[in-house]
């Protein structure tokens, strides 16, 4: 029987990739952020998941404005990293799990989520950095990947409520997947930050704390705001909390325990967080 081990949530900003490339994990500026990850690695090494189902957003590597899917599910044999234009290394290739991808796709469309399917897609730092943080210094990623991209770039974005419902539908699909696999659900991005406009540099720790406090036991609290309301509270890029909300949805109603949580301001322009919600 497929086992869902829990959820791993983390910020994914490119500067983390820069810090890893330069070996700055113990630098005083970065240490408080990287200190969040040993307990996450310990959990993953103990549980040894086979597959990661990851909710993330593309930042102009795979999707451009010519075609911008609201929800896109990868269904490829492999997913490559690529040059994003501003100096991050090209990361390791991910092995896909197309059978599970198509099972999820069938289940989602059956559930009236009319998603886009991608048999070829590049995945950017929003995928690679969370993997680098979880499994540093490995020759190959130890899990197969099913990527699910949520549009956080071009408004109108899907509502938080819809993202939670999408996640819950993915969770139901995972529960009906006949396998011996252990699956970790991931949500990447956030927390509050804003890169653009005169309000650039905006951070809102009160809202971030609210999200961290309600993610596990009351995710409905996170979906009461409109997208504009979330942007106002979390910043234009803080809206990446949608990926966390969807990932939380995929964990379903099973009992959860907060295995670890770390929150730190700032890394680059961002309030950063990492969390594991463990199925118990």
């Amino acid at each position, binding site marked *: 029987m497929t086992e869902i081990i829990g959820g791993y949530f983390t910020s994914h900003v490119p500067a983390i990739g820069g810090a890893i490339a330069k070996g700055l994990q113990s630098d005083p500026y970065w240490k408080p952020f990287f200190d969040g990850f040993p307990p996450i690695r310990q959990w993953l090494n103990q549980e040894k998941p086979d597959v990661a189902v990851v909710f993330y957003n593309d930042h102009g590597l795979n999707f451009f*404005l010519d075609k911008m899917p609201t929800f896109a599910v990868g269904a490829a044999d492999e997913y490559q990293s690529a040059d994003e*234009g501003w100096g991050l290394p090209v990361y390791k290739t991910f092995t896909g799990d197309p059978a599970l991808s198509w099972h999820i796709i069938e289940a989602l469309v059956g559930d009236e989520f009319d998603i886009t399917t991608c048999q070829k897609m590049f995945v950017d730092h929003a995928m690679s950095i969370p993997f680098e943080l979880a499994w540093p210094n490995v020759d190959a990623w130890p899990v197969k990947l099913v990527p699910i991209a949520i549009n956080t770039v071009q408004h109108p974005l899907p509502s938080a409520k819809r993202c939670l419902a999408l996640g819950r539908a993915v969770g139901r699909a995972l529960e009906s997947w006949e396998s011996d696999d252990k699956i970790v659900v991931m949500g990447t991005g956030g927390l509050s930050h804003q*890169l653009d*406009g*005169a309000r650039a540099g905006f*951070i809102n720790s009160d809202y971030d704390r609210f999200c961290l406090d309600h993610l596990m036991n009351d995710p409905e609290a996170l979906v009461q705001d409109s997208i504009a309301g979330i942007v106002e509270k979390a910043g234009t890029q803080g809206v990446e909390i949608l990926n966390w909300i969807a990932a939380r949805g995929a964990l379903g109603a099973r009992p959860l325990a907060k295995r670890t949580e770390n929150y730190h301001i*700032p890394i680059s322009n961002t309030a950063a967080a990492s969390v594991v919600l463990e199925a118990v």
Partner: protein
Amino acid sequence: MSAMLASERQPIEGTTLFDGDMAQRGYALNAMCYSFNDAENREEFRRDEEAYCRKYHLTPGQRRAVADRDVLGMIAEGGNVYYLAKLAGIWGLNVQDLGAAQTGLSVDAFKAKLLSYSE
């Protein structure tokens, strides 16, 4: 909660929502920036910025904002920061440099402002 149409939204101070209007206005500029995922294109831009902007049919306002390295101007002309970051990379600027440029702060002052949130 009912869906909120773009026309019904209250403006957020210092913030532009990248919606359909902006996505249409900014298409050429963003398309140029998207091309910078490719190192050869970055090099071509460096060699002849004017010709490269012409090739992507930037509007006069977009061309002016790019020539002036005017980040708020590029956003006003429909630039989206995820794509503009690739152009900024060509100029050796990161998102903290962009933040400083948009807020009128020095980079050190912008970084200090971010650090102040942790206090």
